């Protein structure tokens, strides 16, 4: 495989065979571990095998894909076929938040948390119709590259880098946190150490081969993450209802949950829309649902690590097709997540609540040791577990569900491997987005335009390592839950980047000054709301006389930044002179697939 990979053609010509064989190999590997488990091999060894071997495979692909070619390093040589780019985007996209936390969020929040499911899928429609094909036609290396070209100069480029950095860095901290949870639980090492072990896993994939290595590991990671997400849900669906398609059967689970909720005295039903903790309709929940859906969708269409995946396809046409493949591969997981949540809830209601605490199985012990994510307290000292005495964090529902439901431990190992694949793949994409922006846009385009190829690649790799270490160190301080951090990243990207990207393509009249002022004011309003309500709520209240503007939580901060960005860009553009004829021709040239984008050849 090594030779064919460097040759390009042989590897690209046999993608189906290679990844088919790889997926088959993974299934066989899982089956062997299942047999070993039945033969009495301890759980700890099974957990080790899954974590170490999968990281080993990614490292192997990463090392095989090492490159010293700029186009290979930044955009995988623009040779990634639509289908495989779709899979890579799927892995790039689905992070620890989707894999580990989302079903947990639905478990706890019921209908109200479906905002995440909607928000994290619908954005691809916007990527497809508004951005991806045009950015591919533009044909450079990074998202700030586009801003720097369209808005003539380093001002817009630098603003782009700042927004990109803030959003992607927040996002990557969340991924390191997820990696820490999984490695500490399955390798049995302290959380703070586990983060740095996971970090090595990220670096081996991305450092030597840049985008090329990340692309081909992401395809491998997608295959593992989707298999491992579907297996426990399909298994439970078959066990409970005899049909292996959870999407069809969990309606019945929802009914059972409803009855059990009545029995247990829960007033906030799982399927009820827009209810507060008491189970009553709440306008605040209603408003926050829309705000979150909007921010996540717009954020999808603004996050540079996703947009740059569409720079890697061979053509504009393939970029478009690739968006369709991406959402299809992503859909497979999102469409299953509510079933995962429903089955977990049903299992907890039936097999955990109401049991004598002394007889609870070993998983309770194991998970209680991972940093306060699961607590069981016999508040009324009757020795029986009540619903209110069982507090489970959303970040461990998915990982612990196979054990809660009494599935073999090999399924837990499989899910851990999947969660790790999801977190690593996204962390890699983000790390590359940040390091590329710093090395290409800041170092090469702004500091030293005469730098040699070798020097640019060394700088890119050095920055990659530095950013990764800082992100892991920040994650070690446990700043917040995974899903909240990720939602902040989406809001920051949405408020800062969406307006200049979309208007740059769709409205020729957008001027340089309009875009820069719009971008910065939108971003700053969003950042202000986020930071103030999160870290200085007292001051915020003193200034505005309210805890939150219209009750909107700070995970949807972009709700305030977005309109500001659009209005400022619009008004300032109309007040400044129209862009030059050359710039208008450039916009025309990226609107049609054929030919070369003007001014970039």
């Amino acid at each position, binding site marked *: 495989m090594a030779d064919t990979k460097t040759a390009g053609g042989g590897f690209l010509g046999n993608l189906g065979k290679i990844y088919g064989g790889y997926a088959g190999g993974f299934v066989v590997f899982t089956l062997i571990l299942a047999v070993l488990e039945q033969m009495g091999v301890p759980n700890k060894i099974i957990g080790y095998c899954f974590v170490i071997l999968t990281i080993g495979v990614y490292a192997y692909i990463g090392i095989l894909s090492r490159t010293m070619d700029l186009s290979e390093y930044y955009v995988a040589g623009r040779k990634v076929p639509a289908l495989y780019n779709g899979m890579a985007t799927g892995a790039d996209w689905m992070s620890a938040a989707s894999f580990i936390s989302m079903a947990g969020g639905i478990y706890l929040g019921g*209908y109200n948390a*479906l*905002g995440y*499911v*909607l928000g994290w*899928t*619908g954005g*691809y*429609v*916007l990527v*497809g*119709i*508004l951005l991806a*094909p045009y950015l591919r036609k533009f044909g450079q290396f990074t998202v700030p590259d586009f801003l720097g070209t369209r808005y003539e100069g380093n001002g817009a480029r630098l603003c782009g880098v700042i927004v990109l950095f803030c959003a992607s860095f927040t996002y990557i901290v969340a991924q390191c946190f997820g990696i820490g949870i999984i490695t500490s639980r399955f390798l049995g090492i302290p959380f703070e150490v586990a983060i740095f072990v996971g970090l090595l896993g990220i670096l081996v994939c991305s450092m030597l081969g840049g985008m090329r290595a990340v692309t081909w590991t992401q395809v491998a990671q997608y295959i593992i993450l989707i298999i491992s997400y579907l297996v426990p849900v399909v298994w439970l669906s078959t066990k409970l209802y005899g049909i292996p398609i959870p*999407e*069809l059967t969990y*309606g*019945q689970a*929802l*009914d059972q949950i409803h009855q059990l909720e009545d029995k247990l005295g829960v007033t906030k039903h799982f*399927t*009820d*829309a*827009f209810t507060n903790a008491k189970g009553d*309709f709440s306008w605040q929940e209603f408003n926050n*649902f*829309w705000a979150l*859906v*909007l921010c996540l*969708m717009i954020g999808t269409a603004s996050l540079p690590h996703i947009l740059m995946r569409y720079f890697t396809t061979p*053509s*504009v*046409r393939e970029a*478009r*097709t690739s*968006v*369709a493949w991406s*959402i*299809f591969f992503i*859909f497979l997981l*999102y*469409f299953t997540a*509510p079933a995962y949540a429903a089955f977990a809830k049903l299992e907890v209601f039936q097999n955990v609540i109401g049991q004598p605490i002394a007889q609870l199985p070993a998983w309770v012990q194991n998970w209680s040791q991972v940093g306060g994510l699961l607590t069981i307290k016999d508040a009324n000292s009757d020795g029986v577990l009540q619903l209110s005495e069982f507090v489970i964090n959303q970040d461990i529902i998915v990982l612990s569900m196979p054990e809660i439901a009494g599935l073999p431990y090999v399924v837990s190992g499989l899910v851990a491997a999947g969660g790790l694949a999801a977190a690593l793949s996204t962390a890699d994409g983000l790390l590359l987005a940040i390091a590329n922006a710093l090395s290409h846009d800041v170092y090469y385009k702004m500091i030293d335009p005469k730098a040699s190829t070798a020097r640019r690649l060394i700088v890119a790799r050095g920055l990659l390592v530095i950013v990764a270490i800082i992100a892991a160190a920040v994650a070690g301080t446990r700043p917040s839950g995974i899903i909240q951090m990720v939602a902040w990243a989406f809001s920051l990207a949405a408020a800062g980047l969406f307006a200049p990207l979309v208007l740059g393509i769709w409205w020729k009249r957008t001027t340089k000054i309009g875009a820069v002022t719009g971008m910065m004011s939108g971003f700053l309003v969003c950042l202000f709301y986020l930071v103030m309500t999160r870290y200085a709520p007292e001051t915020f209240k003193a200034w505005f006389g309210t805890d939150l503007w219209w009750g909107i939580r700070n995970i949807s901060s972009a709700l305030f930044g977005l309109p500001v960005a659009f209005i400022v860009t619009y008004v300032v553009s109309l007040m400044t002179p129209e862009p030059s004829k050359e710039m208008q021709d450039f916009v*025309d040239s990226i*609107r*049609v*697939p*054929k*030919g*070369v984008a003007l001014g970039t050849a």
Partner: protein
Amino acid sequence: MAEKLDTAQMQKYWSRTSRLMWTIFALWIVFSFVVHLFAVQLNGVRFLGFPLGFYMAAQGSLIAFVVLCVWNAVAQNKIDEEFGVQED
């Protein structure tokens, strides 16, 4: 660069592209927001064993998003070919 579209053709091409964009954008709004405004009422209806409001947010809209993305790719490729601006 191959033969360039003249201004009139370019305008026509872009208006067709824009029309497709706005159509899909409108449907995106329907499936992202409008449908779910009625989640409470829809939950009173059963569909495939699910409360319909829950079903739409958990599955229905997602299916619609996939269809919209596929439709966009197919329809836009057709427009490109009609104007002869597809890549060689």
